[in-house]
């Protein structure tokens, strides 16, 4: 089913919330230059599938693969997180132990106006451990417990999270538009640029003398993306002042700014008028032409049937059909489950 060249694929992906199975054993793939649509009645698990693929929920079982390799953290980052945990442990011990340490290093050796000697610290640690072995071992136990919980927290944040999925080349939009309300259109899109490297404090302070806000290449890329979605003239407006369709476009531009290999769109045509819907279809076609794989959740059948290369139908979390738009329209299981008894597909289903 999945071949190695697939930009994004899932293998037997299952997502459970307690007793409820939202997504059950879904295997799918999407290639470059391809639009894959996921349709299904309300509550079929489409958005849950998206959330499981983009790291918002961790799948109960199964795997998500980007370019044929499972999405996970680079070994270097793993090493860093382990190191951070150990450092937290040492720091905690030092904090609990500080009084004893101080007594045996500073108070024991300091003669007024004599200079500080770094040798006092190892001597102090030795004497302090010899003096209070019980307290020290207690500190170590508390430390290891804290370090364990710290590591769990770090793992949870870094191992399979939206950020890691974004790094693997996945970008998504949301069903209910999630723009940053306090920023302009330009800033919203700008935030997606260069997210492969995390912003750092040093990075923030080094440009102090050279530049104020953004590099010229960042600005150029952002403008190019805004031009691509046709909103370059509205770049300085507040994101909240745009119309619904325009906000959709900004969100798509922001997702494209992360330079993804797969773009996941969650109901992009919802709430759009026919003209806006047609423009959106054209936009999605041109994203496909850029070589980006597109995964689309949509209720708007006109859009789905017009632009999809393949369609997957979900019902109650299970995949019930897969095929070309024409094949799906003829599929009896789909007609029964989703479209009702008529085979008329032109009307949007909501």
């Amino acid at each position: 089913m999945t071949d190695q060249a697939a930009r994004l694929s899932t293998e037997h992906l299952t997502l459970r919330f307690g007793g409820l199975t939202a997504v059950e054993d879904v295997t799918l793939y999407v290639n470059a230059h391809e639009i894959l649509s996921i349709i299904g009645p309300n509550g079929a698990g489409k958005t849950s599938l998206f959330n499981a693929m983009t790291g918002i929920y961790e799948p109960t079982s199964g795997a998500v693969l980007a370019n044929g390799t499972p999405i996970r953290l680079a070994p270097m980052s793993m090493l860093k997180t382990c190191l951070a945990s150990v450092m937290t442990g040492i720091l905690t011990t030092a904090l609990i132990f500080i009084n004893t340490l101080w007594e045996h290093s500073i108070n024991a050796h300091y003669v007024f106006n004599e200079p500080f000697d770094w040798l006092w610290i190892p001597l102090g640690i030795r004497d302090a451990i010899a003096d209070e072995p019980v307290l020290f071992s207690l500190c170590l136990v508390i430390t290891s417990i804290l370090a364990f919980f710290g590591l769990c927290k770090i793992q949870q944040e870094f191992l399979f999270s939206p950020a890691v999925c974004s790094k693997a080349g996945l970008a998504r939009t949301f069903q209910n538009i999630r723009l940053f309300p306090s920023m302009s259109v330009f800033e919203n899109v700008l935030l997606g640029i260069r997210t492969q490297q995390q912003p750092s404090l040093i990075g923030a302070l080094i440009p102090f003398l050279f530049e104020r806000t953004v590099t010229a290449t960042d600005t150029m890329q952002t403008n190019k993306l805004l031009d691509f979605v046709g909103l370059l003239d509205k770049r300085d407006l507040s994101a909240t002042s745009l119309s619904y369709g325009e906000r959709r476009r900004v969100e798509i531009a922001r997702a494209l700014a992360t330079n993804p290999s797969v773009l996941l769109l969650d109901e992009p045509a919802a709430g759009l008028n026919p003209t806006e819907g047609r423009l959106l279809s054209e936009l999605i076609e041109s994203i496909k032409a850029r070589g980006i794989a597109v995964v689309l959740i949509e209720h708007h059948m006109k859009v789905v049937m017009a632009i999809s290369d393949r369609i997957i139908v979900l019902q109650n979390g299970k995949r019930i059909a897969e095929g070309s738009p024409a094949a799906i329209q003829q599929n009896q299981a789909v007609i029964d489950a989703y479209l009702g008894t008529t085979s008329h597909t032109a009307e949007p289903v909501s």
Partner: protein
Amino acid sequence: MVQLTSSDKKLLTAFSVLLFLPALQYIMPGTMDALEPLKNIFIFSILGISLHILAGFTGLLSLGIAGFMGLGSYAYAISTSTIYPFQLSFFGGLIVAIIIGSIAGLALGLPTLRLKGDYLAIVTLGFGEIVQDVLRNLEGITKGTQGINPLPAPSFFGMTITTADALPWYYILLCAAGLMFFFARQIEMSRLGRALIAIRDDELAASSLGFVPFRIKTISFMLSAALAACAGALWASFLGSSGEPGNFDFNISALALCIVIVGGLGDLCGVMLGSLIMVGFNSIILVKLAALLQTQQGTLSSSVFASPNNFKYMVFGLALVVVMQIKYRRATR
């Protein structure tokens, strides 16, 4: 090259006015001492900026900022005092205080940053109280309630400045506050600052763009703690004493919160204005009012309102309520 925008020019104007403000004291008749309250305003504006990075940019409410200030003050005192072997210079002590502050911020941030809103506020409130108790009870290191004093007068480039010199301290604190202001401004305009604001606006959207909220929140927590510690170190150096642990109580944190909120949450220039209003009220108007009430009544009255110190927190609270009301109305309109 640095491009000056119109807001930059306004800020430079304000800075140059402050630069020549001490001259006013010698020109104007009377015995008004303007430098003393201004020094407090500068210190608290640094504290305000530190809370602003956390509450204004990242949207995390901290009520334990005084704890970090206390840590910074004691770290500076321990590393410069003659009763301890380190005996660093002013800048050495400042750097130690900033490092200790950021480590403390990291240590508090790592386990607590999964909390949100009110819960984080409660944890940080507890942290502020714990710091006071630790400083009070760790007598071997912090000298308990008496604090570490006197601290040696710091010297800059061969010039020793004692606590009695008002004018040099005015300029040192002015420069420190100005530096911190531009530091915070630079952060705000950098990628890091935009990431902080993105996390405040919508954490899920920011994380799906590739930002790790945990990491960015930790950085902002560390940054805020470092700035608060820096404010504490400056405070200790111009007082010539670490102060006693009770100086870093909840009232300081509440004052910092008042400064940030009165200045309009999320606006850096507002923080400076907020510290001017709140600390100015605290150390100019209240002092004058107290003196006035003293002369009016002659003797100490039994009324609660006889001394402004009794009702100043009521005024702070009123300021918070009024500003929140106005901001709330503006936001919903």
